[in-house]
């Protein structure tokens, strides 16, 4: 390298640092300059914004933002794990910890921030953490798994809530301690805070607002045992995460005499130049010319671009300030604030919609001239993308209609089509609507992933992806391209349309359906993993009516089933299976319990009581399944369909027979319902429960169909859901007799099976379909479509033709021959399936596997 090549040194390889390198490369500056990067962390730049997604299965490798090819191709000298320690501005050198000294022509500081830890006694004890880097998360995870059952987060801001969500996800009982009187005090106002509090508490987190942390209490071993709070109470906790704000990392700059702000941050001008013209500062460590330190990535990216442009000296670039819009990424909570959220603008007005029942709060700040200035959305932030982009202009419809919930009589929600071309859709990457439209029209992008790649929109915090999808579809439609609502690459029809074709034309094989109704190129082919199980399920739901065999392993049907259905058991992470016999209503005789115990003991299975009032036995190898089921069938058990998209359990409380409050026999009804709908294949799984009185011990209101006894009969609730997006069921009809109840459930289930999308639970289905609950009530209670007779007869056919699929399988030698680990060595067990002891039982031997990703429960099946 010749000595007259000018050198750029970048200190800090975080998100903004990496963007700066890309901006240099785009301008050809990496070819004309030597570029040296000092990176403190043990890994190159990664996506800090998505840090929390580590806990939902994203690996550190997947979080990486650094393409090592890029670094190599541009001759960038990247020194990982070697922080800058000293800057000599006189000599223009930077010295790193390793002793490496580099002479610079231009120095760029992108050192980010550090988490602020309040100076409380005990703050450095074992079990205290911060939440900023991948290393922090790894340490928290390890400690939580080994030593903690309770965790507390100090700070109820945006990051504090993310950290609390993560602790909860790790299985800890989680507390949030916030000094301010409400959560997310910076982003939301009092009303928003109340709605947010409700949602967070509903998620099972304990919130202590208006409370300070005074001391971390430790045990004899020096590890955290609790914390003393300002209200005099003490909170027991094994783990503490401090998330009380961040401070710019400006120590290097201070030490070498650069100007820094009174409250921290390296002072820069509009070109991001510090008080030394050879030194720039960008990202979270910089105090911008508008007097603010920006704790968000988008403004940092803009600074990176500005600095690269300034170094290139061929563009006029300036960073004068940025928008502070945010959307919380925490699973299950919708919170967003944008623009002038607190109404700081003179003379502005508010439009507020609040519904504390559902935890919804929406506020828009409107200027005197009618322009939208900003707002806060809690509980339902669907409109965030559109509203943020509209900020600064007068919305095309009245503001109150923008905050009313869908379906409350207001006109259709305002779509992104109403936005002007200059509206910023993705604020992380500063992408306008015009650019996105251009990607579709000029660059021929036809899908969201293509548009993301082409424009970078949607690749930051992800909060704009929904609007992006709508825009891409709108644009395609406007260009006369038909938007594809088809099930998959093989079928252009929706699941509902395929159901109608199968039913009307009595088509009973997948091949026939594919060859006659598949897309041009798919006919005659092998289909795909999306349509095969979906069509398999339709055929199974309608089997008796269309003349197919009701047995899912019969003939061609066997090749359509998802792997779980194909082996009539649930696949586990190491290739073994679990076994769940049906226990209708949760009622079981001691004899049957003993059989389960014996079988589990004899086959060495891990045994667990499930959340669905039955017993799951894990760790069976594929060749053991028939042996185990032979014993279970013999004792009178049948398949519990834990593997199928079909009825799971009908939970019940003990009811009137024993309970002093009970008003009906809930156990009998639960058993009747479970036996009636067992084996019914549907778009997604179906769960039910029956409670003997309004105390609701069976949690019927969280089920797809739930029944609660009244003194006059039964109340029927529908479309409840637990899981990732819980939903309270809606009351469909009241005080029903036994026969009326069953008739309505028959109709409801068959109507759902007919019209739902693939993998759509009743809750999402009800929310999606036009007319919602009222429409469903019209159809199934008042028979407004005149289809109830057909729905009932379809169900009657299912009930009449039900056969236990495990009993059928163990009596068929040809089917049994498929239950082997190896086709050429039927007696050899799969050596990869291994177990080690844990708490007197077994667990999968994971060192045998290289688990690269950890999905959320069941995300694989979605």
């Amino acid at each position, binding site marked *: 390298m010749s000595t007259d090549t000018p050198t750029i040194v970048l200190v800090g390889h975080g998100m903004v640092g990496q963007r700066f390198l890309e901006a240099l490369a785009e301008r050809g500056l990496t070819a004309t300059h030597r570029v040296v990067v000092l990176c403190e962390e043990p890994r190159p730049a990664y996506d800090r914004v998505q840090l929390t997604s580590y806990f939902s299965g994203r690996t550190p490798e997947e979080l990486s933002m650094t393409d090592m090819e890029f670094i190599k191709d541009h001759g960038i000298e990247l020194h990982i794990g070697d922080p800058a320690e000293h800057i000599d501005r006189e000599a223009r050198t930077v010295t790193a910890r390793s002793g490496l000294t580099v002479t610079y022509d231009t120095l760029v500081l992108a050192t980010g921030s550090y988490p602020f830890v309040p100076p409380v006694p005990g703050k450095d004890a074992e079990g205290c953490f911060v939440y900023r880097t991948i290393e922090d998360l790894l340490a928290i995870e390890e400690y939580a798994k080994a030593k903690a059952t309770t965790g507390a987060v100090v700070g109820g801001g945006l990051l504090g809530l993310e950290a609390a969500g993560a602790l909860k996800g790790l299985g800890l009982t989680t507390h949030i301690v916030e000094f301010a009187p409400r959560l997310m005090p910076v982003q939301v106002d009092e009303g928003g805070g109340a709605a947010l509090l409700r949602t967070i508490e509903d998620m099972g987190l304990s919130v202590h607002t208006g409370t300070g942390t005074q001391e971390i209490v430790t045990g004899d071993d020096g590890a955290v045992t609790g914390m003393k709070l300002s209200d005099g109470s003490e909170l027991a906790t094994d783990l503490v995460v401090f998330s009380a704000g961040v401070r710019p990392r400006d120590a290097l700059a201070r030490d070498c005499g650069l100007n820094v702000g009174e409250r921290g941050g390296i002072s820069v001008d509009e070109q991001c130049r510090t008080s030394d013209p050879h030194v720039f500062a960008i990202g979270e460590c910089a105090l911008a010319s508008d007097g603010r330190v920006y704790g968000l990535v988008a403004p940092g990216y803009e600074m990176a671009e500005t600095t690269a442009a300034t170094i290139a000296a061929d563009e006029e670039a300036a960073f004068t300030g940025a928008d502070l819009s945010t959307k919380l990424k925490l699973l299950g909570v919708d919170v967003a604030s944008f623009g002038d959220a607190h109404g700081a603008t003179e003379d502005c007005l508010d439009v507020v919609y609040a519904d504390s029942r559902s935890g919804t709060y929406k506020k828009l700040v409107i200027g005197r001239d009618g322009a939208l200035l900003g707002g806060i959305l809690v509980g339902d932030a669907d409109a965030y993308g559109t509203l943020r982009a509209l900020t600064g202009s007068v919305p095309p419809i009245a503001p109150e209609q923008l905050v009313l919930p869908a379906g409350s009589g207001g006109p259709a929600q305002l779509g992104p089509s109403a936005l002007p071309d200059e509206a910023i859709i993705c604020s992380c990457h500063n992408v306008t609507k015009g650019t996105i439209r251009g990607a579709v029209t000029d660059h021929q992008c036809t899908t969201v992933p293509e548009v993301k790649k082409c424009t970078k929109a949607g690749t930051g915090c992800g909060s704009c992806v929904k609007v992006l999808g709508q825009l891409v579809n709108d644009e395609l439609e406007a260009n006369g391209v038909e938007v594809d609502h088809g099930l998959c690459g093989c079928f252009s029809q929706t699941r509902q349309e395929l159901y109608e074709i199968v039913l009307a034309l009595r088509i009973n094989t997948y091949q026939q359906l594919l060859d006659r109704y598949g897309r041009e190129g798919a006919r005659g082919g092998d289909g795909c993993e999306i349509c095969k199980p979906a069509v398999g399920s339709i055929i199974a739901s309608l089997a008796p009516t269309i003349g197919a065999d009701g047995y899912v392993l019969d003939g061609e049907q066997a090749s359509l089933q998802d792997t779980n259905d194909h082996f009539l058991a649930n696949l586990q*992470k190491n290739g073994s299976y679990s076994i769940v016999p049906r226990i209708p209503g949760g009622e079981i005789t001691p004899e049957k319990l003993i059989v389960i115990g014996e079988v589990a003991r004899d086959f060495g299975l891990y045994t667990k009581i499930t959340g669905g009032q039955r017993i799951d036995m894990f760790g069976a190898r594929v060749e053991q399944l028939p042996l185990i089921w032979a014993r279970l069938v013999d004792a009178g058990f049948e398949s519990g369909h834990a593997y199928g998209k079909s009825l799971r359990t009908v939970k019940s409380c003990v009811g009137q027979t024993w309970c002093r409050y009970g008003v009906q026999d809930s156990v009998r009804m639960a058993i009747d319902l479970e036996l009636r709908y067992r084996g019914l294949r549907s778009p997604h799984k179906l769960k039910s429960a029956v409670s003997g009185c309004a105390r609701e011990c069976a949690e019927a209101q969280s089920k797809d169909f739930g029944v609660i006894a009244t003194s006059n009969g039964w109340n029927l609730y529908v479309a409840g859901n637990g899981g990732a997006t819980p939903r309270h069921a809606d009351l469909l009809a009241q005080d029903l007799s036994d026969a009326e109840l069953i008739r309505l459930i028959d109709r409801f289930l068959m109507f759902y099976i007919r019209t739902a999308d693939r993998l759509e639970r009743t809750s999402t289905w009800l929310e999606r379909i036009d007319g919602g609950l009222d429409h469903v009530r019209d159809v199934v209670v008042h028979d407004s479509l005149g289809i109830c007779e057909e729905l009932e007869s379809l169900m009657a056919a299912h009930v009449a033709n039900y056969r236990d699929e495990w009993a059928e399988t163990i009596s068929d030698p040809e089917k049994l021959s498929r239950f082997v680990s190896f086709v050429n060595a039927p007696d050899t067990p799969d050596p990869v399936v291994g177990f080690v002891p844990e708490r007197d039982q077994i667990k999968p031997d994971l060192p045998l596997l290289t688990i690269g990703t950890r999905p959320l429960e069941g995300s694989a099946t979605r």
Partner: protein
Amino acid sequence: MTLAPETTALKIQLQLEDDWFTVCDLTALLPGRGVAALLPDGRQAALFLDRSGRLYAIDNRDPFSGAAVLSRGLTGTHQGRPFVASPLLKQRFDLESGRCLDDETVTVASYEVRTN
């Protein structure tokens, strides 16, 4: 399965180095589904038959989870090429090349197969 009687005696063979290793009868395979085979050196192969009678074989171990389960995945055609989707986390693998369609950096071994 409808196969002409004279084909039922056909054996499926995999090419290992220079030898052809006999696995099983062709009739042991169901179109659209796979089976696993144990190889002499302890490795495992996943064998598949498609609807037009073509055979494929790739490594049985799912590189994303480590479990030996690819033979239990659902098969299909993507842009005219046959694939299997892992039953665990659903990544798709090209049955001819072993290349993962959802992650360019991952490939599993693939084998030559024939009937004899």
